[in-house]
Protein backbone atom coordinates (compact mmCIF):
# COMPACT_ATOMS: atom_id res chain seq x y z
CA UNK A 1 0.00 0.00 0.00
CA UNK A 2 2.86 2.37 0.77
CA UNK A 3 4.14 1.96 -2.75
CA UNK A 4 0.78 2.98 -4.16
CA UNK A 5 0.72 6.13 -2.04
CA UNK A 6 4.21 7.11 -3.19
CA UNK A 7 3.18 6.49 -6.80
CA UNK A 8 0.10 8.64 -6.39
CA UNK A 9 2.15 11.45 -4.85
CA UNK A 10 4.50 11.37 -7.80
CA UNK A 11 1.63 11.25 -10.28
CA UNK A 12 -0.21 14.23 -8.81
CA UNK A 13 2.89 16.36 -8.38
CA UNK A 14 4.08 15.53 -11.90
CA UNK A 15 0.67 16.56 -13.24
CA UNK A 16 1.01 19.98 -11.60
CA UNK A 17 4.55 20.43 -12.89
CA UNK A 18 3.40 19.32 -16.35
CA UNK A 19 0.52 21.79 -16.49
CA UNK A 20 2.73 24.59 -15.23
CA UNK A 21 5.56 23.98 -17.68
CA UNK A 22 3.53 23.08 -20.75
CA UNK A 23 1.07 25.95 -20.53
CA UNK A 24 4.08 28.21 -21.25
CA UNK A 25 4.73 26.60 -24.64
CA UNK A 26 3.70 29.09 -27.37
CA UNK A 27 1.21 27.99 -30.10
CA UNK A 28 3.99 28.26 -32.69
CA UNK A 29 5.65 25.23 -31.11
CA UNK A 30 2.59 23.09 -30.53
CA UNK A 31 3.44 20.59 -33.27
CA UNK A 32 7.00 20.01 -32.01
CA UNK A 33 5.54 19.79 -28.50
CA UNK A 34 3.31 16.94 -29.64
CA UNK A 35 6.02 15.04 -31.48
CA UNK A 36 8.37 15.60 -28.55
CA UNK A 37 5.66 14.30 -26.23
CA UNK A 38 5.41 11.24 -28.51
CA UNK A 39 9.09 10.63 -27.96
CA UNK A 40 8.79 11.04 -24.19
CA UNK A 41 5.80 8.70 -24.03
CA UNK A 42 8.16 6.16 -25.60
CA UNK A 43 9.52 5.95 -22.03
CA UNK A 44 7.40 2.86 -21.79
CA UNK A 45 10.45 1.28 -23.47
CA UNK A 46 11.92 1.08 -19.97
CA UNK A 47 9.01 -1.12 -18.95
CA UNK A 48 9.33 -3.09 -22.18
CA UNK A 49 13.00 -3.82 -21.47
CA UNK A 50 12.14 -5.20 -18.05
CA UNK A 51 9.28 -7.29 -19.37
CA UNK A 52 11.15 -8.64 -22.40
CA UNK A 53 13.94 -10.32 -20.52
CA UNK A 54 12.20 -12.35 -17.85
CA UNK A 55 13.18 -15.93 -17.22
CA UNK A 56 10.86 -18.77 -18.11
CA UNK A 57 9.32 -16.70 -20.81
CA UNK A 58 6.23 -18.01 -22.53
CA UNK A 59 4.12 -15.08 -23.65
CA UNK A 60 5.57 -12.21 -21.64
CA UNK A 61 8.89 -11.83 -23.41
CA UNK A 62 7.25 -11.91 -26.84
CA UNK A 63 4.89 -9.12 -25.82
CA UNK A 64 7.88 -7.28 -24.42
CA UNK A 65 9.78 -7.70 -27.66
CA UNK A 66 6.95 -6.19 -29.74
CA UNK A 67 6.60 -3.42 -27.15
CA UNK A 68 10.32 -2.62 -27.46
CA UNK A 69 9.96 -2.22 -31.23
CA UNK A 70 6.95 0.11 -30.97
CA UNK A 71 8.44 2.14 -28.13
CA UNK A 72 11.80 2.49 -29.88
CA UNK A 73 10.08 3.75 -33.02
CA UNK A 74 8.47 6.42 -30.85
CA UNK A 75 11.64 7.36 -29.04
CA UNK A 76 13.96 7.51 -32.04
CA UNK A 77 11.41 8.80 -34.54
CA UNK A 78 9.91 11.29 -32.09
CA UNK A 79 13.14 12.94 -31.02
CA UNK A 80 14.54 12.98 -34.56
CA UNK A 81 11.52 14.51 -36.23
CA UNK A 82 11.18 17.07 -33.43
CA UNK A 83 14.80 18.03 -33.92
CA UNK A 84 14.23 18.31 -37.67
CA UNK A 85 11.29 20.64 -37.12
CA UNK A 86 12.93 22.81 -34.49
CA UNK A 87 15.94 23.28 -36.73
CA UNK A 88 13.63 25.07 -39.17
CA UNK A 89 12.42 27.67 -36.68
CA UNK A 90 14.73 30.59 -37.29
CA UNK A 91 14.59 34.25 -36.43
CA UNK A 92 16.05 35.42 -39.72
CA UNK A 93 16.89 33.45 -42.76
CA UNK A 94 20.64 32.87 -42.89
CA UNK A 95 21.92 31.90 -46.26
Amino acid at each position, binding site marked *: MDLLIVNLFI*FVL*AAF*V*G*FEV*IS*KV*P*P*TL*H*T*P*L*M*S*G*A*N*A*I*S*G*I*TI*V*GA*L*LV*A*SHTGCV*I*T*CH*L*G*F*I*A*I*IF*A*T*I*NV*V*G*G*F*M*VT*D*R*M*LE*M*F*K*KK*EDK
Partner: protein
Amino acid sequence: MNPLVPYFLADFVPTLIHLSYLLASVLFILGVKRLSSPATARSGNRLAALGMLIGVAVTLFDREIISFQYIIAGILIGAVIGAVLARKVKMTSMPELVSMFNGFGGIASALVASGEYFRIAPAVFATHELTALAVSLLVGTMTFTGSLVAFAKLRGIIGGAPVVYPGYKVVNTLVLVAFLVFTTLFFLDPANMGLYLVLAGIALLIGLLLVLPIGGADMPVVISLLNSLTGLAAASTGFVLNNHLLIVSGTLVGAAGLILTLIMCKAMNRPLFNVLFGSFGGNGVDADLPGTPDGKTVKEVTASDLAVMAAYARRVVIVPGYGLAVAQAQHAVREVADMLEARKVDVRYGIHPVAGRMPGHMNVLLAEANVPYPQLFDMDDINKELPKTDLVLVIGANDVVNPDARLNTSSPIYGMPILNVDQAQNVVIFKRSMNTGYAGIDNQLFYADNSYLFFGDAKKSLEMLQESLKEL
Protein backbone atom coordinates in the same frame (compact mmCIF):
# COMPACT_ATOMS: atom_id res chain seq x y z
CA MET B 1 21.50 -12.09 -12.31
CA ASN B 2 22.30 -9.37 -14.80
CA PRO B 3 25.49 -10.33 -16.68
CA LEU B 4 26.50 -6.66 -17.01
CA VAL B 5 26.78 -6.15 -13.24
CA PRO B 6 29.76 -7.51 -11.26
CA TYR B 7 28.54 -9.24 -8.09
CA PHE B 8 30.22 -6.79 -5.68
CA LEU B 9 28.23 -3.91 -7.17
CA ALA B 10 24.91 -5.70 -7.12
CA ASP B 11 23.81 -4.02 -3.88
CA PHE B 12 24.36 -0.50 -5.15
CA VAL B 13 22.89 -0.85 -8.60
CA PRO B 14 19.19 -0.53 -7.64
CA THR B 15 19.89 2.78 -5.89
CA LEU B 16 21.93 4.02 -8.82
CA ILE B 17 19.15 3.09 -11.21
CA HIS B 18 16.60 5.01 -9.17
CA LEU B 19 18.84 8.06 -8.96
CA SER B 20 19.38 7.93 -12.72
CA TYR B 21 15.62 7.74 -13.23
CA LEU B 22 15.32 10.87 -11.11
CA LEU B 23 17.92 12.57 -13.29
CA ALA B 24 16.07 11.48 -16.44
CA SER B 25 12.78 12.89 -15.06
CA VAL B 26 14.48 16.20 -14.34
CA LEU B 27 15.91 16.29 -17.87
CA PHE B 28 12.44 15.68 -19.35
CA ILE B 29 10.96 18.54 -17.35
CA LEU B 30 13.82 20.90 -18.21
CA GLY B 31 13.54 19.83 -21.84
CA VAL B 32 9.85 20.70 -22.03
CA LYS B 33 10.53 23.95 -20.16
CA ARG B 34 12.93 25.00 -22.89
CA LEU B 35 10.15 24.58 -25.44
CA SER B 36 8.76 27.87 -24.15
CA SER B 37 10.74 29.72 -26.83
CA PRO B 38 11.77 28.76 -30.36
CA ALA B 39 15.27 29.98 -29.54
CA THR B 40 15.85 27.37 -26.81
CA ALA B 41 13.49 24.65 -28.04
CA ARG B 42 16.02 22.62 -29.96
CA SER B 43 18.37 22.30 -26.99
CA GLY B 44 15.35 21.33 -24.88
CA ASN B 45 14.50 18.47 -27.20
CA ARG B 46 18.07 17.28 -26.96
CA LEU B 47 18.02 17.44 -23.17
CA ALA B 48 14.92 15.26 -23.20
CA ALA B 49 16.62 12.84 -25.60
CA LEU B 50 19.59 12.67 -23.22
CA GLY B 51 17.19 11.90 -20.39
CA MET B 52 15.74 9.06 -22.45
CA LEU B 53 19.18 7.70 -23.24
CA ILE B 54 20.09 7.68 -19.54
CA GLY B 55 16.78 6.05 -18.63
CA VAL B 56 17.22 3.25 -21.18
CA ALA B 57 20.93 2.73 -20.51
CA VAL B 58 20.63 2.30 -16.74
CA THR B 59 17.66 -0.02 -17.12
CA LEU B 60 19.97 -2.48 -18.89
CA PHE B 61 21.72 -2.93 -15.53
CA ASP B 62 18.52 -3.91 -13.75
CA ARG B 63 18.86 -7.23 -11.94
CA GLU B 64 15.77 -8.58 -13.65
CA ILE B 65 17.37 -8.36 -17.04
CA ILE B 66 19.27 -11.53 -17.78
CA SER B 67 19.32 -11.86 -21.54
CA PHE B 68 19.79 -9.33 -24.26
CA GLN B 69 18.93 -10.93 -27.59
CA TYR B 70 15.33 -9.67 -27.63
CA ILE B 71 16.38 -6.27 -26.41
CA ILE B 72 19.06 -5.71 -29.01
CA ALA B 73 16.93 -7.01 -31.86
CA GLY B 74 13.90 -4.96 -30.79
CA ILE B 75 15.84 -1.74 -30.37
CA LEU B 76 17.59 -2.15 -33.72
CA ILE B 77 14.37 -2.78 -35.62
CA GLY B 78 12.56 0.06 -33.88
CA ALA B 79 15.42 2.53 -34.31
CA VAL B 80 15.70 1.90 -38.04
CA ILE B 81 11.96 2.28 -38.62
CA GLY B 82 11.79 5.38 -36.41
CA ALA B 83 14.76 7.04 -38.10
CA VAL B 84 13.42 6.39 -41.59
CA LEU B 85 9.97 7.74 -40.69
CA ALA B 86 11.45 10.84 -39.08
CA ARG B 87 13.65 11.61 -42.06
CA LYS B 88 11.21 10.87 -44.85
CA VAL B 89 8.06 12.50 -43.55
CA LYS B 90 6.88 15.67 -45.27
CA MET B 91 5.99 18.57 -43.04
CA THR B 92 2.49 18.59 -44.49
CA SER B 93 2.14 15.00 -43.23
CA MET B 94 3.12 15.71 -39.63
CA PRO B 95 -0.45 15.09 -38.38
CA GLU B 96 -0.31 11.56 -39.84
CA LEU B 97 3.09 10.85 -38.29
CA VAL B 98 2.04 12.12 -34.87
CA SER B 99 -1.12 10.01 -35.08
CA MET B 100 0.94 6.97 -35.88
CA PHE B 101 3.31 7.66 -32.99
CA ASN B 102 0.33 8.14 -30.68
CA GLY B 103 -0.88 4.70 -31.66
CA PHE B 104 2.53 3.07 -31.22
CA GLY B 105 3.00 4.63 -27.79
CA GLY B 106 -0.42 3.41 -26.71
CA ILE B 107 0.02 -0.16 -27.87
CA ALA B 108 3.54 -0.37 -26.41
CA SER B 109 2.19 0.55 -22.97
CA ALA B 110 -0.68 -1.91 -23.29
CA LEU B 111 1.74 -4.67 -24.31
CA VAL B 112 4.04 -3.98 -21.37
CA ALA B 113 1.13 -4.08 -18.93
CA SER B 114 -0.13 -7.29 -20.57
CA GLY B 115 3.34 -8.84 -20.39
CA GLU B 116 3.42 -8.12 -16.68
CA TYR B 117 -0.07 -9.60 -16.29
CA PHE B 118 0.81 -12.87 -18.04
CA ARG B 119 4.01 -13.09 -16.02
CA ILE B 120 2.27 -12.83 -12.67
CA ALA B 121 -1.10 -14.45 -13.42
CA PRO B 122 -2.56 -16.63 -12.05
CA ALA B 123 -0.98 -15.30 -8.84
CA VAL B 124 -3.03 -12.88 -6.76
CA PHE B 125 -3.33 -9.20 -7.65
CA ALA B 126 -4.19 -6.35 -5.32
CA THR B 127 -7.14 -4.20 -6.39
CA HIS B 128 -4.99 -1.17 -7.16
CA GLU B 129 -2.71 -3.29 -9.35
CA LEU B 130 -5.72 -4.61 -11.22
CA THR B 131 -7.03 -1.08 -11.68
CA ALA B 132 -3.74 0.12 -13.11
CA LEU B 133 -3.59 -2.92 -15.35
CA ALA B 134 -7.11 -2.38 -16.67
CA VAL B 135 -6.43 1.31 -17.31
CA SER B 136 -3.21 0.54 -19.21
CA LEU B 137 -4.94 -2.09 -21.27
CA LEU B 138 -8.01 -0.01 -22.08
CA VAL B 139 -6.31 3.33 -22.70
CA GLY B 140 -3.30 1.91 -24.54
CA THR B 141 -5.33 -0.32 -26.80
CA MET B 142 -8.06 2.17 -27.65
CA THR B 143 -5.39 4.78 -28.35
CA PHE B 144 -3.86 2.33 -30.81
CA THR B 145 -6.98 1.67 -32.88
CA GLY B 146 -8.24 5.23 -32.48
CA SER B 147 -4.95 6.57 -33.79
CA LEU B 148 -4.96 4.19 -36.72
CA VAL B 149 -8.40 5.48 -37.71
CA ALA B 150 -7.20 9.08 -37.30
CA PHE B 151 -4.19 8.24 -39.44
CA ALA B 152 -6.37 6.68 -42.14
CA LYS B 153 -8.65 9.71 -42.16
CA LEU B 154 -5.77 12.16 -42.41
CA ARG B 155 -4.14 10.13 -45.14
CA GLY B 156 -7.38 9.93 -47.09
CA ILE B 157 -7.49 6.12 -46.90
CA ILE B 158 -10.95 6.47 -45.47
CA GLY B 159 -13.00 9.60 -46.09
CA GLY B 160 -12.67 12.46 -43.63
CA ALA B 161 -16.42 12.69 -43.22
CA PRO B 162 -17.87 11.27 -40.01
CA VAL B 163 -18.58 7.56 -40.49
CA VAL B 164 -22.02 7.05 -39.05
CA TYR B 165 -24.59 4.38 -39.70
CA PRO B 166 -28.14 3.93 -38.44
CA GLY B 167 -28.15 2.96 -34.81
CA TYR B 168 -24.46 3.59 -34.21
CA LYS B 169 -25.24 5.17 -30.86
CA VAL B 170 -26.97 1.96 -29.78
CA VAL B 171 -23.95 -0.08 -30.84
CA ASN B 172 -21.62 2.25 -28.94
CA THR B 173 -23.75 1.98 -25.83
CA LEU B 174 -23.78 -1.82 -26.07
CA VAL B 175 -19.99 -1.89 -26.39
CA LEU B 176 -19.66 0.34 -23.36
CA VAL B 177 -22.00 -1.88 -21.34
CA ALA B 178 -20.04 -4.96 -22.45
CA PHE B 179 -16.85 -3.26 -21.33
CA LEU B 180 -18.27 -2.52 -17.87
CA VAL B 181 -19.62 -6.05 -17.48
CA PHE B 182 -16.39 -7.73 -18.49
CA THR B 183 -14.30 -5.37 -16.35
CA THR B 184 -16.41 -6.34 -13.34
CA LEU B 185 -16.05 -10.03 -14.15
CA PHE B 186 -12.30 -9.57 -14.55
CA PHE B 187 -12.00 -7.91 -11.15
CA LEU B 188 -13.90 -10.81 -9.61
CA ASP B 189 -11.71 -13.40 -11.34
CA PRO B 190 -8.38 -11.73 -12.19
CA ALA B 191 -6.59 -14.98 -12.94
CA ASN B 192 -8.90 -15.69 -15.88
CA MET B 193 -6.74 -14.93 -18.91
CA GLY B 194 -9.66 -15.43 -21.27
CA LEU B 195 -11.47 -12.51 -19.69
CA TYR B 196 -8.34 -10.41 -20.08
CA LEU B 197 -8.25 -11.12 -23.80
CA VAL B 198 -11.95 -10.29 -24.18
CA LEU B 199 -11.30 -6.97 -22.45
CA ALA B 200 -8.44 -6.30 -24.85
CA GLY B 201 -10.75 -7.00 -27.80
CA ILE B 202 -13.40 -4.63 -26.48
CA ALA B 203 -10.78 -1.93 -25.97
CA LEU B 204 -9.69 -2.30 -29.60
CA LEU B 205 -13.30 -1.84 -30.66
CA ILE B 206 -13.80 1.22 -28.45
CA GLY B 207 -10.91 3.02 -30.15
CA LEU B 208 -12.41 2.36 -33.58
CA LEU B 209 -15.92 3.38 -32.61
CA LEU B 210 -14.73 6.51 -30.84
CA VAL B 211 -12.83 8.05 -33.74
CA LEU B 212 -14.79 6.82 -36.80
CA PRO B 213 -17.73 9.21 -36.25
CA ILE B 214 -15.46 12.27 -35.87
CA GLY B 215 -15.02 14.56 -38.88
CA GLY B 216 -11.66 15.31 -40.48
CA ALA B 217 -11.64 18.95 -39.45
CA ASP B 218 -11.98 18.00 -35.78
CA MET B 219 -8.67 16.16 -36.02
CA PRO B 220 -6.73 18.81 -34.03
CA VAL B 221 -8.84 17.87 -31.02
CA VAL B 222 -8.67 14.12 -31.67
CA ILE B 223 -4.90 14.04 -32.14
CA SER B 224 -4.35 16.10 -29.00
CA LEU B 225 -6.63 13.85 -27.00
CA LEU B 226 -4.96 10.66 -28.25
CA ASN B 227 -1.60 12.24 -27.47
CA SER B 228 -2.77 12.79 -23.93
CA LEU B 229 -4.03 9.19 -23.70
CA THR B 230 -0.65 7.72 -24.70
CA GLY B 231 0.85 9.59 -21.78
CA LEU B 232 -1.85 8.32 -19.48
CA ALA B 233 -1.25 4.77 -20.68
CA ALA B 234 2.48 5.09 -19.98
CA ALA B 235 1.83 6.57 -16.51
CA SER B 236 -0.60 3.80 -15.72
CA THR B 237 1.91 1.19 -16.83
CA GLY B 238 4.26 2.90 -14.38
CA PHE B 239 1.73 2.08 -11.66
CA VAL B 240 1.67 -1.54 -12.83
CA LEU B 241 5.46 -1.83 -12.69
CA ASN B 242 5.94 0.58 -9.76
CA ASN B 243 8.31 2.53 -11.99
CA HIS B 244 8.55 6.23 -11.09
CA LEU B 245 10.19 7.31 -14.31
CA LEU B 246 7.23 5.99 -16.30
CA ILE B 247 4.80 7.76 -13.98
CA VAL B 248 6.55 11.14 -14.24
CA SER B 249 7.10 11.05 -18.02
CA GLY B 250 3.69 9.62 -18.81
CA THR B 251 2.01 12.25 -16.68
CA LEU B 252 4.01 14.98 -18.38
CA VAL B 253 2.80 13.80 -21.79
CA GLY B 254 -0.73 13.39 -20.48
CA ALA B 255 -0.72 16.98 -19.26
CA ALA B 256 0.67 18.25 -22.58
CA GLY B 257 -2.01 16.49 -24.59
CA LEU B 258 -4.77 17.59 -22.25
CA ILE B 259 -3.71 21.25 -22.39
CA LEU B 260 -3.65 21.13 -26.20
CA THR B 261 -7.04 19.40 -26.28
CA LEU B 262 -8.54 22.14 -24.15
CA ILE B 263 -6.93 24.90 -26.24
CA MET B 264 -8.32 23.33 -29.44
CA CYS B 265 -11.81 22.97 -27.98
CA LYS B 266 -11.74 26.56 -26.81
CA ALA B 267 -10.63 27.72 -30.25
CA MET B 268 -13.62 25.91 -31.77
CA ASN B 269 -15.93 27.09 -29.02
CA ARG B 270 -17.17 23.53 -28.54
CA PRO B 271 -17.00 21.38 -25.44
CA LEU B 272 -14.93 18.19 -25.74
CA PHE B 273 -18.03 16.04 -25.37
CA ASN B 274 -19.61 17.72 -28.38
CA VAL B 275 -16.49 17.17 -30.50
CA LEU B 276 -16.31 13.50 -29.58
CA PHE B 277 -19.97 12.62 -29.82
CA GLY B 278 -21.47 15.38 -31.96
CA SER B 279 -20.57 13.99 -35.42
CA PHE B 280 -20.12 17.53 -36.59
CA GLY B 281 -18.71 18.63 -39.90
CA GLY B 282 -17.33 16.93 -42.92
CA ASN B 283 -14.04 16.81 -44.68
CA GLY B 284 -13.30 20.51 -44.92
CA VAL B 285 -12.15 20.17 -48.50
CA ASP B 286 -14.64 20.69 -51.29
CA ALA B 287 -17.82 19.58 -49.64
CA ASP B 288 -20.48 19.45 -52.35
CA LEU B 289 -22.65 22.16 -50.98
CA PRO B 290 -24.54 24.99 -52.60
CA GLY B 291 -22.63 27.71 -54.42
CA THR B 292 -23.46 31.39 -54.24
CA PRO B 293 -26.83 32.03 -52.66
CA ASP B 294 -29.34 34.12 -54.62
CA GLY B 295 -29.13 37.85 -54.50
CA LYS B 296 -25.55 37.99 -53.33
CA THR B 297 -22.58 38.63 -55.50
CA VAL B 298 -18.90 38.14 -55.01
CA LYS B 299 -16.22 40.24 -56.59
CA GLU B 300 -13.37 38.46 -58.29
CA VAL B 301 -9.89 39.88 -58.51
CA THR B 302 -7.23 39.20 -61.11
CA ALA B 303 -3.60 38.48 -60.35
CA SER B 304 -2.44 41.82 -61.76
CA ASP B 305 -4.97 43.85 -59.75
CA LEU B 306 -4.04 41.94 -56.62
CA ALA B 307 -0.34 42.55 -57.30
CA VAL B 308 -0.99 46.29 -57.33
CA MET B 309 -3.05 46.14 -54.13
CA ALA B 310 -0.36 44.15 -52.37
CA ALA B 311 2.68 46.02 -53.66
CA TYR B 312 1.37 49.39 -52.51
CA ALA B 313 0.05 48.26 -49.16
CA ARG B 314 1.86 49.19 -45.97
CA ARG B 315 0.89 46.04 -44.15
CA VAL B 316 -0.22 42.68 -45.50
CA VAL B 317 -1.41 39.89 -43.22
CA ILE B 318 -1.48 36.34 -44.56
CA VAL B 319 -3.99 33.94 -43.01
CA PRO B 320 -3.21 30.31 -43.87
CA GLY B 321 -5.53 27.33 -43.44
CA TYR B 322 -5.65 23.65 -44.20
CA GLY B 323 -6.05 24.45 -47.92
CA LEU B 324 -2.49 25.79 -47.88
CA ALA B 325 -1.21 22.41 -46.71
CA VAL B 326 -3.34 20.53 -49.25
CA ALA B 327 -1.98 22.66 -52.08
CA GLN B 328 1.60 22.46 -50.67
CA ALA B 329 1.71 26.21 -51.19
CA GLN B 330 3.89 27.19 -48.21
CA HIS B 331 6.95 27.96 -50.34
CA ALA B 332 4.91 29.93 -52.88
CA VAL B 333 3.50 32.03 -50.04
CA ARG B 334 6.94 32.75 -48.68
CA GLU B 335 8.17 33.85 -52.11
CA VAL B 336 5.27 36.27 -52.48
CA ALA B 337 6.04 37.59 -48.99
CA ASP B 338 9.70 38.05 -49.94
CA MET B 339 8.77 40.07 -53.02
CA LEU B 340 6.45 42.27 -50.96
CA GLU B 341 9.07 42.77 -48.26
CA ALA B 342 11.53 43.83 -50.92
CA ARG B 343 9.02 46.61 -51.61
CA LYS B 344 9.04 47.58 -47.92
CA VAL B 345 5.64 46.04 -47.21
CA ASP B 346 5.22 44.83 -43.61
CA VAL B 347 4.23 41.16 -43.99
CA ARG B 348 2.85 39.12 -41.09
CA TYR B 349 1.10 35.81 -40.71
CA GLY B 350 -2.03 35.41 -38.58
CA ILE B 351 -2.55 31.86 -37.41
CA HIS B 352 -5.74 30.53 -35.87
CA PRO B 353 -5.21 27.81 -33.24
CA VAL B 354 -7.24 25.24 -35.20
CA ALA B 355 -5.90 26.09 -38.66
CA GLY B 356 -4.68 22.83 -40.19
CA ARG B 357 -5.08 19.33 -38.89
CA MET B 358 -3.12 19.52 -35.65
CA PRO B 359 -2.04 22.21 -33.20
CA GLY B 360 0.73 24.34 -34.69
CA HIS B 361 0.48 22.67 -38.12
CA MET B 362 0.65 25.97 -40.07
CA ASN B 363 3.59 27.26 -38.06
CA VAL B 364 5.68 24.22 -38.93
CA LEU B 365 4.81 24.47 -42.62
CA LEU B 366 5.77 28.12 -42.73
CA ALA B 367 8.96 27.48 -40.76
CA GLU B 368 9.80 24.84 -43.34
CA ALA B 369 9.44 27.48 -46.03
CA ASN B 370 11.96 29.64 -44.09
CA VAL B 371 9.45 32.13 -42.75
CA PRO B 372 11.15 33.69 -39.71
CA TYR B 373 9.14 32.81 -36.59
CA PRO B 374 8.84 36.41 -35.31
CA GLN B 375 6.48 36.96 -38.29
CA LEU B 376 4.10 34.25 -37.08
CA PHE B 377 1.37 35.82 -34.93
CA ASP B 378 -1.21 34.16 -32.69
CA MET B 379 -4.88 34.98 -33.05
CA ASP B 380 -5.07 37.49 -30.19
CA ASP B 381 -1.97 39.36 -31.28
CA ILE B 382 -2.90 39.65 -34.94
CA ASN B 383 -6.49 40.66 -34.16
CA LYS B 384 -5.16 43.85 -32.56
CA GLU B 385 -3.35 44.66 -35.79
CA LEU B 386 -6.04 43.81 -38.33
CA PRO B 387 -7.95 47.14 -38.21
CA LYS B 388 -4.63 48.78 -39.12
CA THR B 389 -3.96 46.36 -41.98
CA ASP B 390 -4.33 47.32 -45.65
CA LEU B 391 -4.68 43.87 -47.13
CA VAL B 392 -5.37 40.39 -45.82
CA LEU B 393 -4.68 37.31 -47.95
CA VAL B 394 -6.79 34.38 -46.76
CA ILE B 395 -5.27 31.21 -48.19
CA GLY B 396 -7.16 27.96 -47.78
CA ALA B 397 -8.95 29.06 -44.60
CA ASN B 398 -12.68 29.59 -44.27
CA ASP B 399 -14.53 29.09 -40.98
CA VAL B 400 -11.77 30.67 -38.90
CA VAL B 401 -12.38 33.99 -40.67
CA ASN B 402 -16.19 33.83 -40.84
CA PRO B 403 -17.58 37.00 -39.23
CA ASP B 404 -20.83 35.12 -38.49
CA ALA B 405 -19.00 33.68 -35.50
CA ARG B 406 -18.99 37.20 -34.06
CA LEU B 407 -22.16 38.71 -35.49
CA ASN B 408 -24.81 36.10 -36.24
CA THR B 409 -26.23 34.57 -33.09
CA SER B 410 -28.06 31.88 -35.07
CA SER B 411 -24.92 30.60 -36.79
CA PRO B 412 -23.66 27.17 -35.70
CA ILE B 413 -20.21 28.63 -35.20
CA TYR B 414 -21.44 31.67 -33.24
CA GLY B 415 -19.10 32.37 -30.35
CA MET B 416 -16.08 30.70 -31.90
CA PRO B 417 -13.09 33.03 -31.67
CA ILE B 418 -12.02 34.05 -35.18
CA LEU B 419 -9.47 36.17 -36.97
CA ASN B 420 -11.30 39.45 -37.61
CA VAL B 421 -10.04 39.87 -41.16
CA ASP B 422 -13.23 41.72 -42.15
CA GLN B 423 -11.90 44.67 -40.14
CA ALA B 424 -8.98 45.14 -42.51
CA GLN B 425 -9.15 47.56 -45.45
CA ASN B 426 -9.33 44.82 -48.07
CA VAL B 427 -9.53 41.07 -47.94
CA VAL B 428 -8.63 38.69 -50.75
CA ILE B 429 -9.73 35.10 -50.32
CA PHE B 430 -7.87 32.40 -52.23
CA LYS B 431 -10.37 29.64 -52.88
CA ARG B 432 -10.74 26.67 -55.14
CA SER B 433 -14.49 27.18 -55.60
CA MET B 434 -17.53 28.65 -53.90
CA ASN B 435 -17.87 25.78 -51.47
CA THR B 436 -18.45 26.14 -47.79
CA GLY B 437 -15.90 25.24 -45.13
CA TYR B 438 -16.05 22.10 -43.07
CA ALA B 439 -18.84 23.48 -40.94
CA GLY B 440 -20.94 23.50 -44.12
CA ILE B 441 -22.09 27.06 -43.55
CA ASP B 442 -22.03 30.11 -45.73
CA ASN B 443 -19.38 32.76 -45.11
CA GLN B 444 -20.64 36.36 -45.17
CA LEU B 445 -17.08 37.52 -45.57
CA PHE B 446 -17.16 36.62 -49.27
CA TYR B 447 -19.95 39.08 -49.99
CA ALA B 448 -18.56 41.99 -47.98
CA ASP B 449 -17.79 45.25 -49.79
CA ASN B 450 -14.10 45.02 -49.01
CA SER B 451 -13.75 41.35 -50.03
CA TYR B 452 -12.43 39.94 -53.27
CA LEU B 453 -12.14 36.33 -54.34
CA PHE B 454 -9.28 34.81 -56.23
CA PHE B 455 -10.36 31.42 -57.54
CA GLY B 456 -8.01 28.56 -58.27
CA ASP B 457 -5.51 26.21 -56.70
CA ALA B 458 -3.68 28.15 -53.99
CA LYS B 459 -0.22 27.31 -55.26
CA LYS B 460 -0.99 28.22 -58.90
CA SER B 461 -2.73 31.42 -57.81
CA LEU B 462 0.27 32.46 -55.76
CA GLU B 463 2.59 31.75 -58.67
CA MET B 464 0.42 33.94 -60.90
CA LEU B 465 0.65 36.64 -58.26
CA GLN B 466 4.44 36.33 -58.27
CA GLU B 467 4.50 36.80 -62.05
CA SER B 468 2.34 39.89 -61.79
CA LEU B 469 4.48 41.31 -59.01
CA LYS B 470 7.57 40.87 -61.19
CA GLU B 471 5.94 42.84 -63.99
CA LEU B 472 5.14 45.81 -61.78
